[in-house]
């Protein structure tokens, strides 16, 4: 009985030709999704305005070129932002090589076996592990066991820990990017006598590269705001010198701090002036994030245009 009724109903609704009503429904959906979009944007806007109002007064050249200080008006962000750049550059290099490498292997070379599937599931799981766990792993592996190489609580140990944190994300996004390349291209290449390596190098990788970059952007954006794993690894709160660029081996073994740690420290001070200094730090952090993302988006768009 009831099923017959519902069939009757669906047939009825299929025969509704009222165009105006359907346009109305479309409009309602449009407005609802517009509101949904604006809720996020308004919250972000209020947050940005609040931070800028608080922080703009302390934001000047001295803020970027001074080291931290007990006096709010002299407190600077130099060791923090330089530390973040060091960390991001090393993390990007390490995680790109390892992450994209394993992504390509798993997608293009590995046979479709049960253990490949287990690895696949585990990488998915790793992407959801809380970041502090990576911090503890990094503390033991990079700071203590590999101390002769990393120099203990150094920017290199921090970067390697950060790389561990984001490599699963990069592997997953690399594989998605490779999956999006049509199989006909691979088959065409192999049919012409190319080896697998040649097919990947010449056909698949260039097409998938923009997608990989997107994954990279998302992963690095996560890394730039992380504090917990770095505190575990031993990033400092007060440091008044920078890693040396030459010799690089010494620079890599230098202790460091990063922007979120410095901001957190200022926020928890009793003096209200330090809260404004923290707001200035947040502005710099956001600007750095924006800059990083726009560079990556620029490259992505450039390569996309070349291909199509």
């Amino acid at each position, binding site marked *: 009985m009831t099923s017959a009724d519902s069939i009757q109903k669906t047939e009825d609704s299929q025969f509704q030709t009222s165009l105006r009503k359907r346009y109305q429904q479309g409009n309602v959906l449009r407005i609802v999704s517009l509101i949904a979009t604006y809720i996020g944007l308004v919250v972000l806007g209020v947050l940005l305005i609040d931070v800028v109002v608080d922080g703009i007064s302390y934001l000047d050249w001295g803020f970027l070129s001074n*080291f*931290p*200080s*007990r*006096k709010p008006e002299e407190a600077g962000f*130099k060791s923090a932002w*330089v530390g973040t*750049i*060091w960390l991001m*550059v090393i993390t990007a*290099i390490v995680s790109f090589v390892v992450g994209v490498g394993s992504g390509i292997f798993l997608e293009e070379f590995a046979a479709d076996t049960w253990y490949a599937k287990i690895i696949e599931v585990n990488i998915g799981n790793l992407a959801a592990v809380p970041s502090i766990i990576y911090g503890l792993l990094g503390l033991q592996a990079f700071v203590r066991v590999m101390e002769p190489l990393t120099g*203990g*609580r150094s920017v290199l140990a921090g970067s390697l820990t950060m790389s561990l944190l984001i490599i699963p994300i990069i592997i997953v996004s690399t594989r998605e990017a490779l999956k999006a390349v049509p199989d006909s291209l691979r088959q065409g290449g192999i049919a012409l006598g190319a080896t697998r390596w040649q097919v990947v*190098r*010449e*056909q698949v990788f*260039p097409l998938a*590269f923009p997608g990989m970059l997107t994954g990279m952007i998302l992963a690095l954006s996560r890394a730039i705001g992380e504090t917990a794993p770095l*505190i575990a690894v*031993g*990033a*400092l*709160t*007060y*440091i*008044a*010198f*920078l*890693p*040396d*660029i*030459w010799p690089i081996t010494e*620079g890599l073994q230098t*202790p460091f701090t990063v922007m979120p740690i410095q901001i957190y*420290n200022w*926020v*928890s*001070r*009793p*003096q*209200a002036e330090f*809260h404004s200094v923290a707001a200035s730090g947040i502005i710099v952090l956001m600007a750095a994030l924006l800059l990083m993302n726009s*560079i990556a988006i620029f*490259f992505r768009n*450039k*390569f996309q245009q*070349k*291909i199509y």
Partner: protein
Amino acid sequence: MINQHMRRTITLASLGALTFTLAACGNQTSDNQAAGGGETGAGSSELSGSVVVDGSSTVFPVSEAMAEEFQREYSGVRVTVGVSGTGGGFQKFCNDETDISGASRPIKQSEIEKCEQNGVEFIELPIAFDGLTVVKHPNNDFVECMTVQELKTIWEPEAQGEITNWNQVRDSFPDRPLGLYGAGTDSGTFDYFTSVIVGEEGASRGDYTSSEDDNVIVQGVANDENALGYFGLAYFEENKEKLAAIAIDDENPDNGEGCIEPNAETVGNGTYQPLARPEFIYVKKSSAENNPAVQEFVNFYLDPENNGTLVPQVGYVAVPDQILEKAQARFENRTVGSVFEGGSVQGVKLNEVL
């Protein structure tokens, strides 16, 4: 053809990006070196080396101020200060990973044993005082002073769910709900407050608004007319227009009669009891002996002039000269071990035991 071209572009672009970032960093560092060189020229000493400080977040502002001024004088020395809490700091310290560890409570017996296992000998030095302040909303005019016993009634574990109204604390208090705000269980402030008020470290009721961030507690008390909260003196001094302090009576005339207000004077002279607490640094003996930079930094830390100006600037109370002299002597003689022998700081007069 296109792919060949493509590949070259990618390679060039990546190389370009890499060179760009490295060059950016390179400029940055050479600027810094130039600046650093200038400072060295103006500096007074050839002293070099590194000093690794870690530990309590309460002691951090003091160490930061000391490090800042010390490096102005000795620009060749690299002082770094980390924050991993009193307990986390001792873990690293007893693992022989740091030179100096800041602590907002004396070292515990278990930590002493760990240090002994790893052969780390330490020198215990008081470097500042902090007063835990019990605060209320400024509109609250019925409570000016409370006894330790009354505070215990409110905060002991048995009070959970039972003591919820001000009139249960003292008969003369009005019928008003009690809004409680306090330190989170991970902080040294919590350990200290429970140990001197309730009488057992870590014993506290759980049904109150807690936060590790004292600024959150400040906000909570400032927005609740019936609130009672506690945190470090510096947070009260910075928010005097939003909060009011409650004077404390420990019912012991030996250290000041009656109700004592928290301020720099009462905390420094030991009359604000039992809520005035010393802050410490623990110095590794081997670092003090073998690393001139550590030795000089600790001397700088204990210098009455530096201690007297820098400690109040970051919101704490400087150590009286008399105690500072004893601390200096302790460091000079490399006296190792803790005067508290793994116990609490309560009731111990630093002036006598040092």
